[in-house]
């Protein structure tokens, strides 16, 4: 039984580590700020959850440690969307606009193809980076 738990915990830790590294790599591969934010939220939500779950299987009867791990996990899960939203809002407020893909669905009325973009001068400014 204990070996099974150990193996499960090992798997969770390795998977969590892999997802953390993936998210960090995504922060370098994605082209603009808004897509990088998604890469960051991958590591925040699933990577953190998996690593903390892996640690929870290693408590060896110290329930105080379990309580603290649960608190850390809850805190990360609650603050992560709040932080992302504040960041996206501040970036929009500061004049940053998402770089949109080119093959948008034209017939969908809800898709905003020119979101927040009046001057095309800004586009070239951002491409320069």
């Amino acid at each position: 039984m204990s070996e099974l738990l150990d193996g499960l915990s090992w798997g969770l830790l390795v998977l969590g580590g892999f997802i953390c590294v993936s998210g960090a790599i995504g922060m370098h591969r994605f082209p603009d700020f808004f897509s990088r934010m998604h890469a960051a939220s991958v590591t925040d939500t699933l990577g953190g959850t998996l690593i903390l779950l892996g640690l929870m299987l290693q408590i060896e009867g110290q329930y105080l440690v379990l309580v603290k791990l649960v608190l850390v996990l809850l805190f990360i899960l609650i603050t992560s969307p709040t932080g992302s939203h504040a960041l996206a809002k501040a970036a929009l407020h500061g004049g940053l606009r998402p770089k949109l893909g080119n093959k948008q669905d034209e017939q969908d009325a809800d898709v905003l193809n020119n979101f927040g973009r009046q001057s095309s001068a800004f586009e070239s400014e951002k491409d320069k980076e």
Partner: protein
Amino acid sequence: MKKNISLRYIISLIVVLSLIWIGNSGYFNGLLLSLGAVSVAFVVFMAYRLGIVDEESQPLSVSRRIIVYWLWLLKTLVQSNITVVKRIWQGPKAINPVVARIPTSQKTEMGQTIYANSITLTPGTTTLDIQGDTLIVYALSYDGIRYLQGGEMDRRVKRLEE
């Protein structure tokens, strides 16, 4: 009348804070318990003076179905995480960012907040803004928008309000 309502929130705040204290300290001797009691009393007093002991900070009226919703959200979270990790390894060509309006059907602000935060929590979609009843959502690809337009999450959040 108003005092009765806020008493409920004060009691729930005291219970939550005491549980956090006990969970973090783990000692049950007289000194530390009394220090905890003083801390809890101080925090409740400050919160009361700030006027934040209300429905907004402690949504007691959200139904018990929130547990089921959390489990469902966890499942969605894992699925969308896998998609985003795949896109990261496929490189920048795999993404095709879209901004779209998503209508909401929630009546209360609490419901809208839960919906918008759930959208942000699942990787691949982020709420940028709320304009009245519609959310402005940024997604890594059109699939994310199509999933939200399918309205499963919307319906589940709406059921929480009842």
